């Protein structure tokens, strides 16, 4: 657990005092990722650096697991906190292996152990150990260097991590991969992480909590869904963007909103029966046809059913789009738009249909949170009733 208590930093500059962090108080529970988010120069890095005392606080205290860090030896404190700096800061005089193992060496691990650890870290960041361990940082791309920076911070398995825009230099595709890997790792390791970002999408994806900063002040500190549903003021609202309702879709999985009720047809049903079922279930365009194992094999078009006689098995078209229970709603919404559907069937791991998710369910979900908020009792109550953010699974 990290707790900041009225943490303040005032820099004396030739042009006068700059308050980079102004009475920041917040708490990150153990095992959670807290994202510090805000525009450039709002004090995210400064706040982060006060935790490992790279920057001396002007006033205020930092507690880690209840212990006041100002009473600890600075070196000891830092060796137990993984630190990824914004400028990457790999040591150019050391090979990648030496960079990664630098903290384990400081902690006195034996050679076999730290060398194996280096290979393990390389696999975690999806880089080939044999190809890279003996290289020097200058021989790597910016994105690769950044990944090594993360590996170096993680190598000694510190319980607390401070990460300053750790994925900023990585291209979107690789970034998504690394983010996923990182979250998977976090599920196992349960580290307490402070993570600076200025990418709202990254914050929503990675954060258990998000702290929004503005000009050195902590403006709002909430769980991602609360933040998106109930921004505290105009600044937060504009920072989150006009499409924040869509961003919330990232946080909800199909599992949370799917219903088991779904209308299906089988190959030996007649087209008349299919048409009836399309109307009964309120499907405008089509209905899914499944085989004996309830696996989808095609769709029956309403227009075809209306004008033709016969059996479904002779008149179905293409395989329908389906989603799995672990997909997020953003993917669902995008499939709905792309295929002009108001509902999408859900399948289990064996590809058997187990339910559906409808556009109405999605709008209802988004709307219920807004209504809860506008009724005035704030986000807290609504948060309990809402499905937990996807990453906490």
């Amino acid at each position, binding site marked *: 657990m990290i707790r900041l208590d009225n943490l303040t930093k005032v820099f004396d500059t030739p042009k006068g005092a700059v308050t980079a962090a102004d009475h920041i108080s917040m708490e990150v529970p153990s095992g959670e990722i807290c994202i510090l988010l805000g525009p450039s120069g709002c004090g995210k890095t400064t706040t982060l650096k006060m935790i490992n005392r790279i920057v001396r606080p002007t006033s205020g205290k930092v507690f880690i697991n209840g212990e006041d860090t100002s009473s600890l030896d600075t070196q000891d404190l830092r060796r137990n906190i993984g630190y990824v*700096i914004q400028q990457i*800061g790999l040591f150019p*005089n050391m090979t990648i292996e030496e960079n990664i193992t630098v903290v384990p060496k400081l902690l006195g691990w034996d050679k076999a152990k730290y060398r194996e650890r280096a290979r393990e870290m390389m696999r975690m960041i999806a880089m080939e150990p044999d190809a890279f361990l003996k290289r020097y940082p200058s021989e790597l791309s910016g994105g690769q260097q950044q990944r090594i920076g993360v590996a170096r911070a993680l190598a000694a398995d510190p319980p607390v991590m401070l990460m300053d825009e750790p994925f900023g230099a990585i291209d979107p595709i690789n970034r998504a991969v690394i983010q996923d890997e990182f979250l998977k790792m976090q599920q196992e390791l349960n580290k307490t992480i402070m993570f600076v970002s200025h990418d709202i999408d990254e914050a929503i994806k990675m954060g258990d909590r998000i702290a929004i900063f503005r000009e050195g002040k902590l403006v709002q500190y909430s769980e991602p869904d609360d933040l998106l549903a109930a921004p505290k003021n105009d600044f937060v609202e504009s920072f989150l963007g006009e499409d924040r309702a869509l961003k919330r879709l990232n946080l909800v999985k199909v599992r949370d909103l799917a219903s088991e009720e779904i209308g299906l047809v089988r190959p030996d049903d007649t087209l008349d029966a299919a048409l009836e079922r399309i109307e009964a279930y309120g499907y405008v365009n089509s209905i899914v046809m499944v085989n004996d194992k309830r696996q989808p094999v095609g769709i029956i078009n309403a227009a075809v059913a209306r004008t033709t006689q016969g059996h479904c098995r002779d008149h179905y078209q293409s395989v329908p789009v389906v989603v799995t229970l672990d997909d997020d709603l953003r993917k669902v919404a995008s499939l709905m738009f792309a295929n002009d559907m108001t509902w999408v069937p859900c399948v289990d791991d064996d590809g058997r249909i187990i339910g559906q998710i409808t556009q109405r369910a999605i709008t209802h979900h988004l709307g219920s949170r807004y209504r809860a908020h506008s009724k005035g009792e704030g986000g807290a109550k609504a948060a309990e009733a809402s499905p937990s953010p996807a990453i906490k699974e």
Partner: protein
Amino acid sequence: MPTLNLAGAGRLLVLVAVFLAGIWSQSSGVIDDFIFYLPDVHYLVVQHLWLTVMSGCLAIVVAIPLGILLSRPSMARVAESMMQVLNVGTTIPTLAVLALSMSFLGIGTVPAVFGLFVATLLPITRNTYTGLKGVNPALMEAAAGIGMSPTQRLLRVELPNALYVIFAGIRTALAINIGTVPLAFLIGAGGLGELIFTGIDLYDPVMMLSGAIPTALLAVVVDMLIAITAFLLVPRGVNPSRA
């Protein structure tokens, strides 16, 4: 192809010139004159090298710690003014340094070594200081954030990253040193200067060259030795000549 032919022709010309020079020197007895000075050269080269090694090692041993000390954050206030003083010091001609040294310490080896030491000290201190100050602050922050102690930061991060610049300083310093050693003769410390200056005085070009050629060769050899050491010692990741 034409350039290759030109190069070939050039090489041929050089060969012919060397051959003719050989014939001329053989016939004129210059070689015998040189051989006459050989025992002197031998003795003086040792003396010469000894002056260089003494003053050079002393300078390195003092200059690097001094540069390190000045680059510490706690010294930031005095460091800049110290460096200004050192920079002014560098502009003083080495002959003047030797003369000053003689006026304090008399004549002989001691004032010579001291004068050479001072002249060698400045470039090494300056490069050590600027090299260490020039290490990317992000590296220093990463090193601190990782939990390295100030000494570990110095030994594992700062010095390896500044080493190339420090070696450049040593190289310049020793070039100055070797170039100045002949002047040490003037304050009674011997060395190859003895042949050079006496040769000039006696208008004996062979004597002068017997001093000058070994001096030049020594300078080239020492410079090469330092370059090789730098090549081997500076880690590959921060060594531009091994990139």
